[in-house]
């Protein structure tokens, strides 16, 4: 709690500055694409959102594994708080992808392997959000949600490799860990700024929500203890 309280202002400030630089640079100063024209500027929102949809789910699955193995209460709360934020960024990825697809492909949506696997991820997020709240006993909800989160993690490699395994309308990865990026440097830098900025924003939001959840749990505990004392008295 103390660490997160100290980290959040720095994360939030870094998120604001880096995202603003990335988006302004991408919108006004980065060059247009020779084929896509200015529609390529949607990339500075879409790519960070896609990265955080997957990375957020990986964090959710990790917290779920910690919850199941070590029964750590903070992992339960973090998993519950990551879910809605990850779903929001997945929705942002799908919406901006649709807004990019319409002028480029002539369609708002195609049942392409990459798009469909991300849509499945969105439904898994929604399923997790619903499942953890579906039990009267929160601990049972956390356990059920953790199992669903671990099973759902199988969708992450499918999303990653969908463009290699199937013939997709969606383009293959432009940036990989193993090779040089196939992108003009004047487009790459604003993309890196916006991706890092959105990642810091995601971390700040999740930490703040988790802090609030810890305090709310403390409040519930105090109220229940007070009610029990009044019944006995």
């Amino acid at each position, binding site marked *: 709690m103390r660490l997160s309280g100290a980290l959040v202002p720095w994360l939030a400030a870094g998120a604001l500055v880096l995202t603003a630089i990335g988006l302004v640079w991408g919108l006004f100063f980065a060059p247009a694409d020779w084929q896509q024209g200015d529609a390529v500027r949607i990339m500075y*929102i879409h790519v960070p959102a896609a990265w955080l949809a997957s990375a957020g789910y990986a964090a959710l699955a990790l917290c779920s594994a910690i919850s199941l193995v070590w029964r750590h209460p903070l992992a339960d709360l973090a998993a519950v708080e990551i879910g809605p934020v990850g779903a929001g960024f997945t929705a942002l990825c799908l919406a*901006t992808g649709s*807004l990019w697809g319409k002028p480029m492909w002539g369609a708002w949506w195609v049942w392409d392997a990459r798009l469909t696997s991300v849509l499945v991820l969105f439904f898994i997020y929604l399923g997790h959000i619903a499942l953890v709240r579906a039990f009267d006993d929160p601990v049972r909800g956390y356990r059920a949600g953790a199992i669903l989160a671990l099973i759902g993690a199988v969708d992450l490699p499918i999303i990653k490799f969908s463009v290699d395994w199937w013939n997709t309308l969606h383009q293959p990865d432009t940036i990989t860990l193993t090779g040089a990026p196939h992108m003009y440097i004047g487009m790459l830098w604003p993309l890196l700024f916006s991706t890092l900025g959105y990642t810091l924003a995601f971390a700040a939001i999740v930490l703040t929500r988790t802090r*609030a959840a810890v305090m709310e749990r403390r*409040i519930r505990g105090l109220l229940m203890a007070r009610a029990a004392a009044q019944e006995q008295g």
Partner: protein
Amino acid sequence: MDHLPFIAASYMLGVLIPGGFAIAAFLRVGTARRRLAAIDPRANRPGARSRRGGVS
């Protein structure tokens, strides 16, 4: 700039969705802090907030 409506809608969503989450989280932690302070006066002591807010 071509395809301006699509670009503008994307940037609007790109600001509104994370911004909405950030504002909601900020308000939620503020409300929780005030409720905790009202229920447990010890949470108001300097330096006590983080200790008292620990996972129970």
